[in-house]
């Protein structure tokens, strides 16, 4: 029994430091042995006191604790998800930190009009779509989160949800299929919802058509906003058009592979995987003044003419914002 007691004390001393019983310092020396100096009330000797004082509450240990707790949660499945499959734990601790360097360093994204994003309650963010790969959507999601602390739930086409890994990540990061049911449910739940009404027509358009807004679907997003009374925030994203300049769309290949389009950019497929590195254009993300739909009722949602007009109004507002931002832009990469 005595032996067991000794071992436990050793370990305890090594771990925590304050070895008050023995009255010895709790730190280890360069040779890896326990320090034999007399401990002060802090549990360390005079020499080691200042070392450990600076080391103990260090950011390192706090980080370590967080990382390990995260790993434990993943290992035991102990994390909540919502009905849409949004895994906040994974999104905030892994996915967003992975994207942040792209946001801050690579594209140096500048935000304007962040105060137009409601801090509470539902809202529909409507943005232009570009860039061959929908990275603008991911950046908008991250930008909104970093500016307001709110998660902007994106509505995506069905193509990503068919793919392995991509579909899974899309769901886990809180996005869902662009359909009326899901959009209505999210807005009724008071969420921020992001939508790109141009869809493939926007993200897969040729470089020469850059910053020309394409047709806005069937205006389904306006109907949903009207039905739920959520304000519509027009968002203009400048810079994403230049990340993969799409020179040509190889339609037969796209059809063969089941892709919505098959892009040819100056670097892809010429440079193979290297061609996947996006160009470091400088981005600006402008959030416009919200268009209120509160006073308008469900009757307005079932009036097609009204819906068309409101859709056009939103579209026009984004197009104007794009032009204004482009005018003030110093250069594509500056």
């Amino acid at each position, binding site marked *: 029994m005595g032996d067991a007691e000794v071992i436990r004390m050793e370990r305890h001393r*090594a*771990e925590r*430091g304050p070895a008050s019983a023995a009255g010895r310092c709790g*730190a*280890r*020396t*360069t040779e*890896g042995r326990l320090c034999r100096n007399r401990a002060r009330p802090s549990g360390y000797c005079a020499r*080691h006191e200042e*070392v*450990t004082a*600076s*080391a103990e509450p*260090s950011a*390192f*240990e706090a980080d*370590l*604790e967080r990382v*390990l*707790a995260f*790993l*434990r949660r*993943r*290992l*035991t*499945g*102990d*994390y*909540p*998800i*919502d*009905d*849409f*499959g949004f*895994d906040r734990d994974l999104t905030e601790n892994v996915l967003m930190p992975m994207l942040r360097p792209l946001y801050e360093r690579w594209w140096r994204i500048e935000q304007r009009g962040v105060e137009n994003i409601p801090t509470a309650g539902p809202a529909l963010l409507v943005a232009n779509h570009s860039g061959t790969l929908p990275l603008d959507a991911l950046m908008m999601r991250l930008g909104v989160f970093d500016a307001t602390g709110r998660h902007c739930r994106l509505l995506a086409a*069905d193509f990503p*949800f*068919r*793919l*392995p*890994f991509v*579909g*899974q990540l899309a*769901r*886990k990061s809180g996005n*869902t*299929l662009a*359909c009326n*049911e*899901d959009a209505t*449910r999210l807005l009724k739940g008071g969420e921020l919802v992001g939508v790109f009404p141009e869809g493939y027509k926007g993200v897969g358009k040729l470089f020469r058509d850059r910053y020309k807004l394409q047709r806005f679907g069937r205006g389904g997003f306006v109907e949903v906003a009207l039905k739920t009374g959520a304000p519509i925030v027009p968002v203009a994203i400048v810079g994403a058009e230049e990340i993969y300049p799409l020179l040509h769309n190889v339609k037969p290949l796209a059809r063969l592979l089941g892709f919505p389009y098959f892009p040819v950019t100056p670097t892809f497929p010429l440079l193979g995987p290297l061609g996947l590195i996006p160009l470091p254009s400088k981005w600006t993300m402008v959030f416009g003044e919200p268009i209120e739909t509160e006073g308008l009722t469900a009757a307005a949602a079932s009036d097609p003419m009204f819906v068309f007009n409101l859709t056009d109004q939103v579209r026009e507002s984004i197009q104007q914002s794009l032009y204004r931002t482009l005018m003030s832009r110093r250069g594509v990469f500056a």
Partner: protein
Amino acid sequence: MAKQRVLITGISRHLGGRLAQRLEQDPDVGDIYGVDFDPPSHELNRTEFVRADIRNPLIVKVLQATEVDTVVHAAVIATPGGAGGRAQMKEINVIGTMQLLAACQKAEKLRKVVMKSTTTVYGSEPTDPAVFTEDMGPQSQPKTGYAKDAWEVENYARSFGRRRPDVALTLLRFANFIGPRIQTPLTRYLSLPIVPTAFGYDPRMQLIHEDDAVEVLYRAVREDHPGTFNAAGDGVVYLSQLIRMGGKVPAPIMTPFFGVTSSLVRRTGLVDFSPEQIGFLLYGRVGDTERLKTQFGYTPKFTTKEAVRDFLATRKLPKVFSELQAEQWERELYAFLARRRRQSRVQALEGN
């Protein structure tokens, strides 16, 4: 007022048996009849067992002789294994339901029909809405297996409801069952030590505890709730979470081979997974339970996660690692790394 007289099909099965047990405890319920080919496996006191085949037109005689006012149809089966093949399963499900409902139409004393259905009717596709409400149907008509049967059975039930508007029809779409005693393909699947999953897919799942399922059936019999209701515990879990909660290891299999593997696993008899369930293992499915809570007036006692915990706690399944172990690893790793860091700082300072 005369006491309620109830007939339950599928009495030899777990939920049918437990529902009969629950009804037996209620003094306001009169005679209870259980219909099945096999005798009930549960201990029943005042339930009368009628050995009959619902596919046989004789079932109309049973209904007339027993003079029941409530029929609970819980005999629709989910897996071909239990029935002796897919053809047999389809017979029991579709023809059986048709015969039963035909008999119900002739039963004059009948006032209520409760159908045990399933959220499987919604299918599982990547283009599904995230959450299904009762007003939605499948994205595309299910072409095979249980999903097709369940959808056809519901359609027969609905047309029966139109022909007999005086009979209250309750359709209960249950999520996958889980619990300490119930045996389903999913419980057997989750009991495997290494769980095959589809590589790159993580379906969302919603489960209902067997106790809650029995309670919902019981209330549908005792109270009047005509209409269609999704029944599931609160909350959603990913399959990967289920596997981790059980302390098991997932074995991801590339999707082209997934079908082959699952049929191999099916051959071994360990898990009876029909091919249409593969969609479920890729994309999952979630139903909206708002109507159950507000209109039906029942909130399941177990959330999806609690139901899983109850299942894991009572089954004593082999675990590769436990939660306590994970916590211990966390503590030890922390102590080790923090100590290393402290040491290196001491070294750095002593070196100066």
